[in-house]
């Protein structure tokens, strides 16, 4: 009777879960996310990911940064956002630095930000593949680091999250230079 296990064609298939302490929180969060235009659905978390209540919200994991910001703006409580695949590694926290002489490039995950050592002006952003990355590129370049918008404030995706980690490291390095 495998036919009953087949997914409905066209149904949403995310790769992340939002875990909550209790069922009303999950139901309310689902409504808020749908109202904001996110594609989500209420699901029971798999046993290995069951930390709070028996209900969670399945999301497109790529969109987690925008979703976290929405929860924060609306003071919505949640326990955590986690990949649906149980064996997935944690978020990358490795940052590497390349010194080009006049400029420094900081790489976090798949994202890179380069800035001028003497002026602190962002020269370029590269890497990534989500739709907010060309937008961040346009918003960040030619601005001085302290005045540039943070990727975490204007981006929505995991690529933007990695860009923000690179941005933070750029700020730290720049403070050290000044």
């Amino acid at each position, binding site marked *: 009777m495998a036919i009953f296990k087949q997914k409905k064609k066209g149904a949403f298939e995310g790769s992340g879960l939002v875990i909550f302490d209790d069922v009303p929180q999950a139901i309310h969060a689902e409504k808020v996310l749908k109202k904001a235009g996110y594609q989500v659905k209420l699901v029971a978390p798999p046993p290995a990911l069951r930390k709070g209540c028996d209900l969670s919200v399945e999301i497109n994991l790529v969109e987690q940064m925008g979703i976290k910001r929405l929860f924060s703006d609306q003071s919505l409580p949640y326990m955590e956002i986690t990949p649906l695949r149980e064996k997935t*590694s*944690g978020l*990358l926290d490795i940052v590497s630095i390349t010194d*080009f002489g006049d400029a420094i*490039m900081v790489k976090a995950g798949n994202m890179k930000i380069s800035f001028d050592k003497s002026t602190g002006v962002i020269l370029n952003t*590269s890497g990534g593949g989500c739709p907010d990355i060309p937008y961040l590129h346009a918003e960040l370049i030619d601005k001085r680091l302290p005045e540039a918008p943070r990727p975490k404030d204007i981006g929505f995706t995991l690529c933007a999250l990695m860009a923000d980690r690179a941005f933070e490291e750029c700020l730290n390095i720049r403070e050290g230079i000044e």
Partner: protein
Amino acid sequence: MILIAGTLPIKDLPIITGKVEKNGADLIVEGNRFPCTQGTAALISAALATTSYLGTSPPYAVLAGDTGRGEGSSEIYRYLMENLPGTSPDVLVMHYILPDMVKMRSICEKADLCSKKPVMVADAASMYAAKAAGIVHRFDVFTPDAAELGFLADPEATHPAYIAHHLFEAENGHVPNLIETAYRQKSSPNLLLVKGQLDYIVREGKILETIGEPNVPSLEAIGGTGDTITGILAALLDAELEPHEAAVIAAKTNRMAGQFAEASPATKISQIIEHFPAVFAEYLCTWSGVCYIDYVK
């Protein structure tokens, strides 16, 4: 005909479709003007520079504004699901589109309905979606950088931000191992062009060629240098070059244009692309072994 599908960082831009034209430094599709910046615009611009030199048809673009919330991406998926079989491109390039596993599977099913199945190329988030959805085998070419190759090699990751740490740390010294792992796990299409300090051209898991010259380290810092490689590659595939030859020429062209531009981390991608005609004029005949273009001209 090449069909390039991707988003532009322009809020509220509705879906636009049509042949790409160039006017000054800008690109024009269906009367809409936009600059050549990192992302799908850079890919289109590189493809157009290549088709213009070759004298082949300009790319056909399916574009929509999207700054990360996915509205434009949804429009692109919808358009392709409705129109792909009727359009039947020779080469289909999927690019900066918010990953949606269900919709990406539908696009691949529609591609099968084309009069002739297009050569399927994915880069950026479309590559993430294909891998996460487990349909890598439906694509012919991926163009990852080393970090994205680590993502392909990680069976659990659905985005490069979640790569296992040991795979990410291995990216610089162990690209061949990552290539082998990705292929073994069926996360690699027939052809891979791995972009990096060394570019790797890989077919069916075997490294055919590496390209390291000219070495222009600043290219890594310049937003759009990966996009341009994919754009050149798509145009050369449309000109019916063998995929691995197209990949080699794309990688060499990008590097040489970087050298011509005397690239620094402050260089903009449009400044690299403007050197493509000069690179083609000087090297394409030698690299391709075909001087027919010069003969015709």
